[in-house]
């Protein structure tokens, strides 16, 4: 018998914010206080990039990170302790941003009952087609003045 996963606890943004703040304070900023809830209307992302992991199960669930390229480059430099003037390669960008999605996705999965396996992260320039998916949660955070989005989706099987 397959027991369906229960995602209801995560349709509130607070647990996702806590997970993201923990990640940013320990591995990106080295101190708390730099990641906060974005207030007001959903912001637009400049030159946006998308990174996600899926959790398998009767209903596949996607945890997706959305950020502008420049913000993603800042995140990559922070993770790799690079100087602000250093160029970020596409490979390092995809690796770093994908790993952020992976850590958020893994921690989100840990809060859910009966989840399936986590996929490897995917990073794209083009927004994935989510027209048949159901959005469980979409929230935005601010980091260094720039918006970062996190969304949670139930994908049609």
């Amino acid at each position: 018998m397959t027991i369906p996963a229960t995602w209801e606890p995560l349709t509130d943004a607070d647990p996702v914010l806590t997970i993201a703040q923990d990640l940013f304070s320990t591995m990106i900023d080295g101190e708390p206080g730099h990641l906060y809830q974005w207030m007001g209307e959903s912001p637009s992302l400049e030159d946006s990039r998308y990174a996600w992991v899926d959790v398998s199960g009767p209903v596949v669930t996607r945890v997706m990170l959305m950020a502008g390229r420049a913000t993603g480059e800042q995140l990559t430099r922070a993770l790799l302790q690079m100087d602000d003037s250093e160029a970020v390669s596409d490979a390092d960008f995809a690796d770093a941003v994908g790993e952020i999605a992976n850590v958020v996705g893994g921690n989100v999965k840990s809060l859910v009952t009966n989840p399936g396996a986590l996929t490897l992260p995917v990073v794209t320039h083009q927004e994935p087609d989510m027209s048949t998916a159901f959005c469980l949660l979409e929230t935005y955070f601010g980091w260094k003045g720039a918006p970062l989005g996190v969304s949670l989706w139930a994908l049609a099987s």
Partner: protein
Amino acid sequence: MKVIVADDSRVMRQIVIRTLRQAGYDWWDIEEAEDGAAALTKIRASQPDFVLSDWNMPEMSGIDLLKSLRREGNETPFAFVTSEGSPEMRRQAEAEGALFLIAKPFTADVFRETIDPFIS
């Protein structure tokens, strides 16, 4: 002490190694592996004292790497650093013989508190 850090993310391998240094293990001789299959080859060749591995990797997952080692009688001390720290995964890791599982994100303090008891 010879240690292998296995993770398919180069960024995460750097962060794990940097955090190990911050935690005081700057005397460790660390070799990197980019997935479980590469780690298995390197473990057979260099016979490390300790393996610190991601769980979710292409080619061979961390748990399959651990199972492969134990199947061939290799008892190298083994632990996980992974983005998932669910009770089920911790149970599975322990059942296969892992020393511990550290969930990402982590700090140098977490590394020290978790690893130090096994160093002696």
